[in-house]
């Protein structure tokens, strides 16, 4: 079996080569000294202990982390119910208008995120000027681009559940609202949890939409902070922040995968 050795070897080399820069960035997050290119022992200085420059003690880094988490939290709370509603509403809808709504739902998945950001910027500075830029606009942006993922995940689960239980409940006299609350929603549990985590990961990783919707220093997210300091003179605290982000979104996607029994979701194109 020649192939069974060669193919995995090629794959491993390619994957490791691709991931190497990220792994090295993580390594220097734990550096004792200031260098981001030479190993200088191991410490948590840049995460926790440095009195002014660590992620915990540098107010700009800490507030960016806080703002990212706030945005992700709000996006989860809004996008998941809304996406679930859309999935339920679209389920087994074959009549007029179903094609249009399917396209409408897929549109955010193929729209380049920059075009989306420019469009929203235009919207919030003209027609919807009363909303303006800032946290609200950022949340609306994140909700909108993660909504389609929620619909995809919940819909997949709805197909698996099938119609039987729903009909049985209705036959036994349950009003529609009860069917939804007592039968469908509990069965959808894993899909809802997977959706929450996916929205979290999408929101926390986003750079473009958050950047375009931002209104100032207090609306800076972690990716924006990382971008801003990457070209300045960064310390390993930047690497530490990168590491925290990676751990958060990896954990969210891994959990989503386990719960949803699907595969992790790709960020928007």
């Amino acid at each position: 079996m020649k192939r069974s050795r060669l193919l995995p070897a090629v794959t491993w080399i390619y994957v490791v080569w691709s991931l190497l820069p990220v792994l090295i960035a993580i390594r220097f997050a734990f550096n004792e000294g200031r260098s981001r290119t030479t190993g200088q022992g191991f410490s948590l200085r840049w995460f926790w202990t440095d009195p002014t420059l660590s992620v915990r003690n540098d107010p700009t880094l800490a507030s960016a982390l806080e703002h990212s988490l706030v945005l992700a939290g709000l996006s989860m709370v809004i996008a998941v119910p809304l996406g679930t509603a859309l999935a339920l509403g679209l389920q087994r809808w074959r009549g007029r208008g179903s094609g249009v709504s399917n396209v409408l739902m897929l549109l955010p998945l193929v729209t380049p995120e920059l075009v989306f950001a420019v469009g929203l910027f235009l919207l919030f500075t003209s027609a919807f000027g009363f909303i303006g830029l800032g946290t609200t606009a950022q949340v609306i942006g994140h909700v909108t681009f993660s909504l389609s993922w929620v619909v995809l995940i919940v819909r997949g689960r709805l197909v698996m559940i099938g119609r039987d239980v729903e009909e049985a409940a209705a036959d036994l006299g349950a009003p529609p609202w009860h069917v939804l609350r007592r039968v469908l929603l509990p069965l959808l549990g894993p899909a809802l949890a997977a959706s929450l985590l996916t929205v979290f990961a999408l929101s926390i990783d986003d750079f473009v939409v958050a950047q375009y919707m931002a209104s100032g220093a207090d609306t800076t997210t972690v990716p924006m902070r990382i971008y801003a300091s990457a070209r300045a003179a960064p310390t390993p605290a930047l690497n530490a922040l990168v590491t925290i982000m990676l751990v958060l979104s990896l954990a969210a996607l891994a959990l989503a995968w386990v719960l949803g029994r699907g595969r992790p979701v790709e960020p928007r194109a």
Partner: protein
Amino acid sequence: MSTRIALRTAALGYLGVLVLVPLAMILYRTFEDGLVAFFQSVTTPAAISAISLSLTIVAIVVPLNVVFGLVTALALARGNFPGKGILQAVVDLPFAVSPVIVGVALILFWGNDGWLGGALPVIFSLPGMVLATVFVTLPFVVREVEPVLREIGTEQEEAASTLGASRWQTFWRITLPAIKVGVFYGVVLTVARSLGEFGALTVVAGGVAGESQTLTLLVHARYIDDHNTFGAYAASTVLMGLALVTLVLMALLERRREA
């Protein structure tokens, strides 16, 4: 039934207002001065260079990802080797990494003050942009092809090799035709993502107009730096047009897959 219609209306209303209206506004601004103005704006030297750079990146990234995707999918679906479970998980890793982080990691590695001490001129030039794009699109082909490989099984391949076909012949004549649609779907996703990528590129690309500026970077530069909003809308429309082509291709493939 009425609950369902209410849910449908509310959710579609949201999407309509926040997806369709902004896109329609961009379209309106693009064409409000007529087709000639649009055409002139997307054929300036900087715009043509940006479009061709974006297409060049796609032309390099797609073959790389197809080869890697096929090799990896075959290894995962057919091979049996130590560490397969880890590889399975690691292949998806790029999905979990924020594009900005990809860019920053590349700078820390290849940049002038980076780990390699700037030994190779990668950052701020084409190789850096290709590396960033390859990273963010890495899993697409693998993830489309691997399930198909599992589904078709190994019977036909075994039959072919029993009848004396070499590995290479088996792959070209039996395996590849069976996974063709999956490969194509992966390629479409890769192209869409490559054209639309901004976060990772904005970190590693020089962004010099006419040289190291892709279509997305052109939109951003015109919008934010040059205050040439009309030019930005026109370039966005080109990007959106490419994305819509992708959507149509995906829909057509979906139909073939179900058939």
